């Protein structure tokens, strides 16, 4: 049974890799933020400066990107393979995590949904720090859940992965803090929180991540700075970040920047940039709306289940989801669809749990489950040409794209 699971998981991961790797060498020139991130990563290693990028984001992404460029060369593979690999491996870790939190059936559905999700596939084909942090945070969460379930060795690993998350981008900073507090709370509830375990948890989930965060700035320190300069620099970065508005983005006028829309309506926006009248090429940002639209009922169902049958790791999961998504809604900074992949795994797991729970009430549930997975994969493969930017027949795709805002650049 275990061998069969491993085999199918390998097939799913290989499928996810294929979707992310297909045609990755084109365009052979910089695409999107690559024109900023690739030179910035080289600059960071050489000088500690991150121009032409902004200084206020943590710098681990430059180290990852530059490591890949050193191995594969400064070409499309070097620029994009970190995202391809971490995006693909996120499918694997989401399976492990969901199996740990829920059960194998939910894990299969959630991992399949992530493998084919158009937003995640699209972001995994460019150097996007959102893809990197999702991978790191899922590992951190998985290790934390293992620790809660009694595997003490996982605590330090949880800290390492949370540190890598923090050093890449700050989306999960509140979620990491909430994880720490939740772990303390659960240990206290189990009457296992003595001074020694309190210090272990604090050192592993606070001190260790912060140290990794500071170390990722090693090239910045190489400009002559010390730890006191670093503390001030962090304050300055935070204040600079507060000035980012919708006008700071080239796509600001076109794109939807409200994160509540991700789960309440279908989102398609972008450009039609080539057409022969019958077939057109698009650059489209989109959500997988048939799935995302189920988020609210699914989350309510999860909360209801937690109240009916309290489960410690479900609590951990719900806290991580809420503390990642709510700040995005509350803060004034615009949030575009690419940021949605930071909450995507939580949404996919919650929706999968909801759907599997519904199917479990039906007769012939296996058949329905297979049908559901087939439908999801087929739908996402239908969207895949839009992810690749390949020409699609207007007669089929136009009705769908007209739901959103597509600007004709042709």
């Amino acid at each position: 049974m275990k061998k069969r699971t491993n085999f199918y998981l390998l097939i799913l991961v290989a499928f996810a890799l294929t979707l992310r790797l297909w045609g990755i060498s084109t365009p052979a020139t910089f695409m999107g933020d690559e024109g900023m991130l690739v030179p910035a990563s080289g600059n960071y290693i050489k000088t500690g400066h991150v121009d032409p990028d902004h200084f206020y984001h943590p710098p681990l992404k430059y180290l990852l990107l530059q490591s890949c460029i050193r191995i594969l060369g400064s070409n499309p593979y070097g620029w994009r393979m970190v995202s391809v690999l971490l995006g693909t491996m996120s499918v694997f870790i989401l399976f492990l995590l969901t199996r740990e939190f829920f059960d194998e059936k939910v894990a299969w559905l959630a991992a399949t949904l992530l493998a084919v999700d158009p937003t995640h596939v699209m972001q995994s084909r460019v150097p996007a720090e959102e893809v990197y942090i999702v991978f790191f945070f899922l590992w951190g969460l998985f290790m934390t859940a293992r620790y809660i379930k009694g595997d003490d060795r996982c605590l330090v690993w949880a800290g390492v992965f949370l540190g890598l998350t923090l050093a890449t981008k700050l989306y999960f900073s509140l979620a990491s803090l909430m994880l720490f507090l939740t772990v303390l709370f659960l240990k206290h509830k189990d009457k296992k929180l003595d001074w020694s375990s309190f210090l272990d948890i604090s050192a592993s989930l606070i001190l260790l991540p912060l140290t990794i965060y500071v170390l990722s700035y090693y090239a910045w320190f190489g400009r002559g700075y010390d730890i006191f300069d670093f503390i001030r620099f962090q304050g300055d970065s935070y204040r600079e970040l507060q000035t980012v508005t919708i006008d700071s983005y080239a796509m600001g006028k076109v794109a939807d920047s409200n994160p509540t829309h991700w789960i309440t309506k279908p989102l398609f926006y972008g450009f039609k940039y080539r057409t022969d009248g019958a077939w057109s090429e698009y650059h489209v940002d989109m959500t997988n709306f048939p799935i995302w639209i189920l988020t609210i009922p699914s989350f309510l169902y999860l909360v209801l289940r937690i109240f009916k049958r309290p489960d410690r790791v479900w609590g951990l999961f719900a806290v991580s989801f809420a503390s990642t998504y709510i700040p995005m809604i509350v803060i004034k900074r615009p949030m575009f669809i690419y940021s949605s992949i930071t909450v995507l795994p939580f949404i996919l797991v919650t929706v999968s749990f909801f759907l599997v729970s519904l199917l479990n009430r039906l007769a012939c549930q296996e058949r329905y489950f297979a049908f559901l997975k087939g439908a999801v994969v087929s739908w996402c493969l239908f969207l895949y040409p839009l992810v690749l930017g390949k020409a699609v027949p207007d007669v089929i795709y136009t009705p769908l794209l007209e739901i959103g805002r597509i600007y004709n650049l042709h």
Partner: protein
Amino acid sequence: MNRKTVWPWIAVVCSLLLVCVTFWGVNARSYAPRPVITQTGEPRDTLHAWEESGLRGRILFSFDRHLHAENEGEQPSNDNFISLAVKKNIVRKIFHVIPDESWAEVSATLSKYTLVKRQEGYFRTWLEDGTPLYILKIGDIKPVAEKVLININAGYWDAQQLSAVVRLLENHSLSSDFITISGEMSPNILNAISNYEKAH
């Protein structure tokens, strides 16, 4: 159950790593082996003088009306040479000292910007790449523990204010290993600064 305690190891390893990264930063600074005073024709020539001396990771006190930190151009000009010095990692922190007679105007302009913070008589902000920038008058200079680079654009300073700069050096509020002067300076002041160089 026997549980291994990990916090002492994490505390020791993390502390060591944080100390190491701070040392790495402090060791990246390089100073002139003995105090140097250089007179340059144009402000932009200052960059060349700093580069030739192999200075790195330094605090700059720029006594000038203008900052010369425009983030444009690869070739040094009077508009961008400080920005280039930051990019080349010669300068890591800037104290821009404004002549007293221009302070009211500068202060009024800076007060309009939300990212410029007023603290104890001086303004604090940062360049486009995050390099800290303090804007202040001579009278608001506080003692600095490490040796700094001093750059004086003499055209903007009268003898009285330049004497105040000399006093800062003499009473060790500021200690410098590299002083650059552009423009004409009165021989008396130049002698006083030279005496500082000889004494150190």
